């Protein structure tokens, strides 16, 4: 029921919400800090979540290295899109009995989270898995929610929000209209 | 039937005639070239303006697969393909099933082919019984039954000892021996030896398989005083040996297939069995030498080497597939293409399809044979009328042969036969 102007309003509103990236990052640091247990392991979903996990590991002065999770092996769209070439899963700790905080940039349909949880289970049985994301947007297709989100936005149809990192390593959030 | 061919460009390579005029046929003979007699009333008029009127083609290598092929009407379909290609006379090799080594089989083949009223069939008899290379055939009886020469098709040459005997016996009676120059042991591969064979992991036939065979044949024919026709030259080195033998004055002739004239080893592509041929396609250098040699007369005739192969026998891994391609309908077009690409005169292009092969077939006496391949007033009315500008695509739908496989599939062909007259009879009309 969005007319042109309402859709544009929505997009503008969302853009406003994500304009101050440093503030969002700080919110994420505080949110993850609050979720943390002494033995929690940070694992970022490749690639955007991994960038954030790297930042968080440093900001929270955590020992060791953050883990990386790839959704490639468990995606549900392999038949349509084939195998995606991305960073492979790299954990560096025993999943059995671990408290894991999964970090991602954007929570959208929930399918990526479903895939990475399955991926984690290939390595063992975790004690707990919590989810912290930078941006939680509308459009869920599975019953999956974030335990913490730095920002919640609503976007009109055919709009995408993504985290980008340039050659210098500077992060930015972009909202784009996809061709239908 | 009285036929008048009006306004075509009449070319007779043997005499050099090349003029736009009419040609009249009656009672199996050419009545006039030029204005028809005033009292000539044609039953059939063929309008040949913008067409070429040439002698009916003579193809020295057409496998009819008869006797022996399990497909019904094979003889009929292959002869129909031949006349559709403008061929009025064809020579068929002896590697039928059973082999043409008995006069009865030869008579049967001639009887059956004559009944079909298409083109003339001149069988080659087997040189040895069953082509096994052990016992000579009854060449005199076979000649009386209608054989115009003797050969081994592409069954490897028998031992040199046997070959020597065969050449001596044949030369006693003046018969021509038709030989495929390929050494028995060195010639057992499926593609030409070289970088391609090595890369593709296929067994190769080296050039020496051909040169050693040609050398042996030349030595033996000189000693025996025999007349030899070499079938399907494939290499530049082989052509050098032919040149030398001809310079010496030996009665040696040779032919080349349309495949070796146009294609090379890399045309095999991704193991395409349609390019599985015998002799195998060789390299660029060999093709260039063949093109020059056909132009300068070192090679006497161009043949189709028509060898229809069943679908089942072609859809097999390369080395297991049967060698051969359907080709008789492509003979004319491929000759013209060669002439056009190489700046060869039309007269020569037609000569290698008409009078030159007819002369090879003859070696002798028969008036019918003497007339083939030529347009002369009072001579045999074997005529091919074709449109040099019409185009058609070569594919399974356009080929009349029952074998649908040719490495030229998908090629556009320029020149189409409009009609073929054999002995004054309209055997084919488009």
């Amino acid at each position, binding site marked *: 029921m969005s007319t042109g102007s309402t859709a544009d309003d929505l997009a503008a509103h969302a853009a406003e919400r994500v304009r101050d990236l440093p503030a969002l990052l700080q919110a994420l640091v505080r949110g993850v800090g609050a979720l943390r247990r002494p033995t929690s392991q940070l694992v970022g979903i490749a690639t955007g979540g991994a960038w954030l996990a790297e930042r968080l590991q440093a900001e929270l002065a955590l020992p060791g290295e953050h883990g990386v999770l790839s959704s490639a092996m468990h995606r549900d769209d392999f038949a349509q899109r*084939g195998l995606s070439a991305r960073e*492979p899963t790299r954990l560096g700790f025993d999943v059995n009995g671990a408290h894991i905080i999964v970090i991602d940039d954007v929570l959208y349909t929930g399918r990526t989270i479903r895939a990475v949880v399955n991926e984690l*289970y290939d390595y063992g049985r975790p004690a707990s898995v919590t989810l912290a994301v930078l941006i939680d947007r509308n459009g869920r297709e599975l019953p999956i929610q974030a335990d913490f989100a730095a920002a919640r936005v609503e976007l009109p149809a055919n709009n995408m929000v993504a985290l980008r990192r340039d050659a210098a390593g500077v992060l930015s959030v972009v909202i784009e209209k996809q061709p239908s | 039937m009285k036929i008048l061919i009006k306004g075509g460009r009449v070319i007779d390579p043997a005499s050099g005639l090349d003029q736009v005029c009419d040609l009249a046929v009656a009672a199996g003979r050419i009545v006039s070239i030029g204005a028809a007699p005033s009292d000539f009333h044609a039953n059939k008029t063929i309008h040949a303006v913008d067409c070429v009127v040439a002698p009916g083609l003579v193809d020295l290598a057409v496998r009819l697969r008869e006797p022996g092929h399990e497909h019904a009407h094979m003889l009929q379909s292959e002869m129909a393909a031949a006349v559709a290609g403008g061929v009025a006379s064809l020579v068929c090799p002896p590697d039928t099933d059973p082999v043409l080594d008995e006069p009865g089989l030869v008579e049967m083949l001639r009887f059956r082919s004559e009944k079909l009223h298409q083109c003339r069939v001149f069988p080659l008899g087997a040189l040895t019984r069953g082509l096994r290379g052990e016992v000579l055939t009854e060449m005199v009886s076979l000649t009386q039954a209608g054989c115009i020469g003797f050969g081994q098709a592409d069954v490897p040459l028998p031992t040199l000892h046997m070959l020597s005997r065969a050449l001596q016996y044949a030369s006693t009676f003046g018969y021509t021996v038709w030989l495929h120059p390929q050494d028995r042991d060195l010639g057992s591969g499926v593609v030409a030896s070289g*970088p391609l064979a090595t890369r593709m*992991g*296929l067994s190769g036939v080296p050039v020496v398989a051909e040169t050693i065979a040609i050398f042996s044949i030349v030595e033996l024919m000189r000693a025996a005083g025999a007349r030899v026709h070499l079938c399907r030259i494939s290499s530049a080195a082989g052509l050098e040996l032919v040149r030398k033998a001809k310079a010496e004055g030996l009665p040696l002739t040779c032919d080349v297939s349309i495949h070796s004239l146009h294609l090379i080893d890399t045309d095999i592509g*991704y193991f395409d069995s349609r390019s599985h041929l015998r002799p195998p396609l060789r390299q660029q250098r060999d093709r260039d030498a063949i093109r020059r040699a056909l132009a300068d007369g070192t090679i006497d005739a161009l043949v189709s080497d028509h060898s229809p192969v069943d679908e089942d026998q072609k859809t097999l891994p390369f080395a297991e597939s049967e060698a051969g391609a359907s080709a008789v309908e492509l003979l004319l077009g491929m000759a013209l293409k060669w002439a056009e690409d190489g700046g060869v005169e039309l007269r020569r292009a037609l000569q290698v399809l008409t009078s030159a092969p007819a002369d090879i077939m003859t070696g002798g006496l028969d008036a019918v044979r003497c007339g083939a391949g030529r347009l002369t007033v009072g001579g045999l009315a074997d005529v091919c009328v074709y449109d040099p500008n019409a185009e058609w695509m070569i594919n399974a739908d356009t080929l009349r042969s029952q074998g649908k496989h040719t490495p030229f599939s998908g090629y556009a062909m320029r020149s189409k036969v409009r009609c073929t007259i054999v002995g004054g009879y309209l055997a084919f009309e488009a």
Partner: protein
Amino acid sequence: MLYRRNPQLNKNGELVHLLSIEGLPASILRQVLDTAESFVSVNDREVKKVPLLRGRSVFNLFFENSTRTRTTFEIAAKRLSADVINLDIARSSASKGESLLDTIANLSAMAADIFVVRHGESGAPYLIAKHVAPHVHVINAGDGRHSHPTQGLLDMFTIRHYKKDFSNLTVAIVGDVLHSRVARSDIHGLTTLGAAEVRVVGPKTLVPADLAQMGVRVCHNLKEGIRDCDVIITLRLQNERMSGALLPSAQEYFMSYGLTREMLQLAKPDAIVMHPGPINRGVEIASDVVDGTQSVILPQVTFGIAVRMAVMSLVAGNEAN
């Protein structure tokens, strides 16, 4: 000559069949190697399975026997959660006279997704790929003397693992190159990925001069061939070659071309020794070299599973269009 698109690639240039390394762009080879990298780690998990090919069927069509290769394909397919059917064609319908294509048609009717084919005739997988239904993918597990692309890829993976950069490598392939599909695949892989120099080493009867046209240096002397090499790939000398028209005996071969400790000294000190297996100890390679520190023969086997998983998952995800 008519233009022919490489039958392994679809219109978008994606891999839909793996028939030969020849003709594949370096980018595709690298894609396979990179994908294989992620699959190596699958083998270290508690659950050594990913669901990428769940519900898909992989049919192993081995017209030529080979338990080793077939087993690695089977393991690879199962780790991708595919269903695997092994067809021992030699003992079944083909020997009853059923044509190759009838066999394929019958199997296609049983809803196969991937055919892994090994055949004694060069080119057979191309014929099969031409005649399968559009959704079926063909992987060549070895055809005659022509190609063994998964072996070539796992050899490239192994070299990349130990040596990183191809551009300054000298690689020697020693043995019966003439009859070896592995050698041909290795040569194509190395030249495509930009190896500095590839040498083939062996007697003239087994290493013909026209191999040079594939972009390699032909050597008939082992010392000259392996001097300063970074990688030595020794090929199996088949029994049928050893006593006959091509070679007088295994002993004589070992004397001139066997890779011994002493010969190995001529290569670079950190050179790696590879072998596609199965090994004839004392014929093409000495036992102490096989078991020595420079040998990477066993890791090759492990990498082989990851590479085959990569190939299967890549082709299965691309449409034929």
